[in-house]
Structures are given as C-alpha cells and as structure tokens.
C-alpha cells in the first residue's frame, strides 16, 4: 500500500553528482525498473530510498511519509542485494526469520511465515542449511524469501539476477514477475543494467545516464518512442542503427538523404522536421525495421549492402552489413539466403524511422 515519490533527488560524492535532480512517482503496486549503463547512479538512487545513503538534497516519500531522516529499519522496506548478503553464520531458516525476530513477532507467526515463503520459492528442504552449502540459484531464492516474509510496503532489488547463469536468470525473471503479479502485490523498485530484464519485468522503466533520468515510460513506449539518441541506442538488442543524414526539400516534399538514397519523410512529421531543412541530422532505424527488399518495395527505400557477418539465430538472422562507410545491422527472416561477402538488397520500413537532432541528441518526431 505505498507509492514512492522522489522529489529533486540529488546525491553528491565529494564533488561529483552521482544522482542529479531525479523526480519519480512510483505508483502503488507498480513494478518500476531503473536501468542504465554502469555507474549511472541506479544503485545510489535505490540506496537513498532504502536509507543506506545520505541524501544530499531533495525528498523521498514512501506512502504518505517523508522518510529522509528515517533510519532504514523504520522505512518498512525490504531489499535484495546483488551478492545476496545472506548472513553466513545463520541457517536459511534463521536468515529468513531474522527480520521478523528483530520486529518481535511471536514464534509461531515467524514459523508460519517462513514456511509459507519457503514453500512458495521451493526451498522448504533447505531451511536447515547454511548459506555456503547452497548453489547460486538457491541463495538467490533465500534472499528473495528473506525479503518477502516481512510483507514490506516496498521491495528494492539491486541487480538480483546478475550473478546467475543465463538460463537460471531467465527462469528467475519469470518467477519474479509471477510472484509480483499473483502473490506480492507490492510496490517494487528494481535496478538492472540489462535492458531485456528491464523490458520484460517493468510495468514502467526509468532509463538513467550519468545520474540523470533520460526517460520514464512503459517498455514498449521506450522502444517505439525513445526521447533521445541514448535511450534509442540503449533499449533494444541489437542496438538501433544510426546513420548520418541531411534533410532536403524537393518538389514540396521533405526527403532525408542517406546511403545515397532519398527517403521521403512521412507527411505527419514534416512540420517537426521542417526547421531542419538543409541541416545534418542522425537517422535511426532498428534492425528489424530493415528487411530484405522484395519486388513490391518502392525503389526510393531500397539500397544495396555488403554482408560482412551472418548470425543465424534460428528464429531470425542477424546480418552485419556495410553500406559505404556505415555499418548496419539488419534482422531478417530465417528464410533469407545469403553469405558473407555477398550483396543483399535491403529496404527501410519508412514509418519506423527516427530522427535525432545532432546537437541535443533529442528525438524529433
């Protein structure tokens, strides 16, 4: 039952800002993911919410309370750390019971809650073990279990899956999501540097860079309408292709000149792009918005590329191609037959093109 509100939150380490003017409204029961490259201030933000890091300026509200000066134990939160931070000298049971014991719950209540959580996570047989006798995945579950027995108002996760191997990570990801939907119904703030995790888990996603929030939105919104070049390049894998382009006017219509082509600007974007007439911009196109050209494609959207690397993934093929001095990645159907050093004809999907201002990196749409 708690929203989390961050107002003008700042954190300064010595003279550098790790987190700068962050404003976020995380709604009750929302699964909010903070994502960004290493060192962008995600953990610091989370730790300020937890009360582990002093706030340089700004406010943190949990529920209706301003918690700036509240110690971590009074914030009614639970946190799962990247290294799990299980207490090595305690059994799994004691690890999970620790928070309840500190809060003076009756013994019987502690036992039911720990057993419930353990069953939910499938670790009921491990309760008597010490953490060092567990595998990475099991430790991960214990850490999650320790957090959920407390029924806190807000869950904080700091890269909880990044120490697991790829397969286990996918599995735990699904489980976390199910847990949130079906059982917990609690506000979650989840930090990761993995954009796939961010997209799959988050109700909404916050993209950060250098301590600044770049964009907040639902996963598909970030994907289809990135606000700037950084978000466009960060979200999506393989990353969006960026191509130098120039906007020109010819016969009353706007065209983007790139790769020796003239791509006609869709009519609904003419008004925003009008001021850029005659100027250099960056054109962005996602790999899946490039396809092998067929007979029906208009000639002004088709260009020829030299295939450098072919990466067949089964359900699709990734082509690393070269056009002039530009490298482009295309994601094409598995039926496409091509080899390296061969030429291939590719076509744009015109209404999926993004334009970015070269000085501000803002998306123009």
């Amino acid at each position, binding site marked *: 039952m708690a929203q989390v509100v961050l107002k003008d939150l700042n954190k300064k380490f010595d003279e550098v800002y790790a987190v700068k003017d962050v404003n976020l409204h995380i709604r009750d029961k929302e699964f909010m993911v903070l994502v960004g490259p290493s060192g962008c201030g995600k953990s610091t933000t989370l730790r300020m919410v937890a009360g582990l890091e002093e706030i340089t300026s700004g406010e943190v509200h949990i529920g209706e309370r301003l918690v700036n000066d509240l110690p971590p134990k009074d*914030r009614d*939160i639970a946190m799962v750390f990247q290294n799990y931070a299980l207490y090595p000298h305690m059994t799994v049971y004691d690890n999970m019971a620790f928070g309840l014991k500190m809060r003076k719950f009756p013994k019987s209540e502690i036992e039911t809650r720990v057993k419930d959580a353990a069953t939910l996570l499938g670790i009921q047989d491990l309760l008597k073990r010490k953490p060092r006798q567990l595998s990475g995945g099991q430790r991960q579950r214990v850490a999650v279990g320790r957090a959920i027995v407390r029924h806190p108002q807000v869950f904080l996760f700091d890269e909880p899956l990044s120490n697991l191997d790829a397969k286990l990570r996918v599995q735990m990801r699904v489980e976390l999501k199910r847990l949130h939907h079906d059982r917990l119904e609690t506000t979650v703030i989840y930090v990761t540097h993995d954009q796939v995790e961010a997209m799959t888990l988050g109700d909404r996603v916050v993209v950060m860079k250098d301590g600044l929030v770049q964009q907040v939105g639902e996963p598909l919104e970030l994907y289809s309408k990135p606000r700037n070049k950084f978000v466009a390049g960060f979200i999506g894998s393989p990353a969006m292709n960026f191509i130098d382009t120039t906007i020109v006017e010819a016969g009353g219509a706007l065209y983007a000149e790139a790769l020796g082509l003239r791509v006609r600007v869709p009519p609904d974007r003419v008004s925003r792009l009008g001021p850029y007439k005659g100027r250099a911009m960056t054109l962005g196109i996602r790999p899946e918005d490039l396809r092998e050209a067929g007979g029906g494609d208009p000639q002004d959207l088709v260009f020829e590329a030299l295939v450098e690397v072919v990466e067949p993934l089964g359900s699709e093929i990734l082509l690393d191609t070269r056009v002039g001095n530009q490298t482009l990645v295309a994601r094409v159907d598995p039926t496409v037959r091509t080899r390296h050093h061969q030429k291939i004809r590719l076509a744009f999907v015109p209404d999926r093109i993004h334009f970015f201002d070269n000085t501000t990196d803002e998306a123009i749409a």
Partner: protein
Amino acid sequence: MIEQRWKRWVFFYIPLTLFIIGTLFPFYWMFVTAIRPDHELYRSWRAANNAPFWTLQPTLAHFQDLLARTTFPRWLWNTFFIAVASTGISLFCGLLAGYALARLRFPMAGALGTSIFVTYLVPPTLLFIPLADIIREFHLGNTPWALILTYPTFLIPFCTWLLMGYFKTIPKELEECARIDGATRLGAMVRIIFPIAIPGILSAGIFAFTLSWNEFIYALIFLSSPERKTVPVGVVSELIRGDIYFWGQLMAGALLGSIPVALVYSFFVEYYVTGLTGSVKG
C-alpha cells in the same frame, strides 16, 4: 620427473627442515637444560662423557626448587591476570575503533587510521619515560594496574589495525541488509558483524595476549616487589643473582611460562589462520 623431485628437495624439504630445526631447537635446549641435573650443568665442556644435547639422568629438581623457593606460581598468576585484563581492554577498544575506521564515513578517517598506526611504531623503550611519570602521578607504581593500563598503548593500535583489516573483508551489504531488516547500526554490528569476525577477533586476542604475556620492559620498570612481578621479569631478576645464573630453574621457569601461550595457540590455530588470511564467504 627426476628433475621435479630434486627441485622439491632443494626448494621445499631441505629449507623447511632447516627452518623447523632452527625454530624448535631453542625450545628443545630449554627443555633439556630444565631437566638436566646440576652436576651435568656446571661441569667442564670437555669432561668425560659430556653429552650437551641430551641427558641420561633427567630430574625434576629444578621445577621443585622453582616452585618452592621462589614465588613462581604468584608470578604466573600476575602475568595471567595482567595479560587477560589488558587484552580485554584492548580488544574492546580495538573492536569499536576498527569497526568505525572500516565502516563509518567521517572526516579525517584515513588520517586517523594512519596516526593510530604510527603510535604503534613508537618504541616502548622511549615511551616508558613519560609513562613512568604518569604512573607515578596516579600512584599506580608497583600495582598490576600500572601494566594493565600501559599495555593498551601498544595493544590497542595493534588490535585496531588487525580488526579494521578484517572488517573490510566482510561485505558491507550484510549489515546494510540487517539494518533494513530491523536492526540498529549497533544491533547489526553485534548480531551480524561480530559473529562473522570471530576469527579476526580471536587472532587479535591471541596476539594481544602473547604480547602482554611476554612483555618485559614495562614490567621491569613499573613493578618492584618480588611477589608483584610477572614471569619474564621474575625469572630473570630472581634467578640471576649477581653473576650467578641458576640455569636449571631459569629454564624451568621459561618452560612453564611458555606453556599457557602454546596452549592458547594450539586451541585456536584454525581460527587464527583464517583470521590472518581474512576470508569470509557469503
């Protein structure tokens, strides 16, 4: 294969054997001298059937003499009491200071850590002069407290440094998690960090105990009456009279005096090793 074997001998077994002999020989010598009868001890080196490295007539006479004619048991008790008390004080201060230096962020933390270490480097042979003054001011001369309160001058810096290093190897997430789970900072320290740091605490304690058990200079200067003395000082000052060395009793005293320390070490040797190599796995 053959080359491997000789390498093992030359670089491993032979140096190791020499090292072990070098370390253990003084103890053996102490032992043999303590059980050697006087007439063997004080005869000419060139006497017939002289066997310097062993004896065929072992005797406990020196031990009996030591226990009957000197206040050795009393010294043993004094040493023990002083060592335990000063170790306790130093561990307590070292724990808190080491924790603070390892974990809390406060201005000048680094400089403070270094300066504590520097105080450890001041040699006791210099420090005893001002300390003697202080002991006199407080009328503590010739009491156990003279030592219990001065030993921490070198034990606290030592414990602080050892424990600070150990605390730094414990992931800080552990106590952060405990603080979120409902513990205060102090609670997290006592319930989570200290239990994990037991190997470190034990090795600091053993070291401190040994250092104060063997301490000589302060004990020599601050204690004067025979029944107040500690083993190292008592043995030397009561069993060397003028230029006469009571070798048998001296060595018996040294042997008995080193047994408690050896016992303490052998009990905790495992902890002690992990304490020094400092490894905690989550």
